[in-house]
């Protein structure tokens, strides 16, 4: 059966404060890595989808990416890649 791998990335909107990213940035400085202007932390979802990813299913997937995978009030999603495999 054919499979399609879809990668979705979710990031906080640029104007939303990211305290986790800020804490990670602080750790960079403490570990001696200077010059980090900013770190933003996000999420990556790797979906393996069975069968053909038709236009309809792709549209449904986009809807879920915009409602379930991200909260559109504070986050943006991006479909990073769509790869089919036999």
């Amino acid at each position: 059966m054919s499979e399609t791998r879809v990668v979705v990335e979710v990031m906080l909107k640029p104007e939303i404060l990211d305290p986790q990213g800020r804490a990670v940035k602080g750790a960079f400085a403490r570990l001696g890595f200077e010059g980090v202007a900013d770190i933003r932390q996000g999420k990556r979802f790797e979906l393996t989808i069975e069968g053909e990813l038709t236009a309809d299913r792709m549209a449904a997937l986009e809807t879920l990416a915009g409602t379930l995978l991200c909260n559109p009030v504070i986050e943006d999603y991006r479909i990073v890649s769509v790869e089919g495999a036999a």
Partner: protein
Amino acid sequence: MTSRIGVVTFPGSLDDRDAARAIRAAGGDPIALWHGDADLPDVAAVILPGGFSYGDYLRCGAIARFAPIMEQIVARANDGMPVLGICNGFQILCESHLLPGALTRNDHLHFICRDQKVRIESTHTAWTADFTAGQEIVIPLKNGEGGYIADDATLNMLEAEGRVVATYVGPNPNGSRRAIAGITNARGNVVGLMPHPEHAIDALTGPTTDGLPFFTSVLTSLLASR
């Protein structure tokens, strides 16, 4: 019927028992509701309790928002049924878009658990009518993702329309914009609250009994609207 108040249990809910106990203490009849049921039984109001529904996976409240029982709760809330979301319940109400904005990680990144002084800013809701405006109360606050955020236009609108229900008094405990501890919808029937009134209804187990008026308020407003 007017005293039957549902309390939803999601996988990972913690405070459903205390919410039911608070309803009983206020003179109401708590009705246990299950997240997986599609039908909402005969209840006059609903409480979404605190806890970590679905382990807080993905985002707090993000998966609970799509639980089968939520479809009817959202529809009934839009028709005016009183709904109170406490802590995780507040997060679920925001994820459901019954309330604007979102709750994000505390700005200091630490989980907080303390008795918190809170000012009641609005008594024009189904859940706060038994308070006096400006009244300061002390009830427990315990959260990791309690920072209320919304864009400036939304925050200005909430303040201008008197929809900020409660604010934190003293140092801001979690980075909430405008020190917001609770908000309501335009109609005043849906309230989201980050601190926990259900843990402050009995001097034996809580710091105060300051939380009880939230639960008597809804019974009063249900009687008045009958």
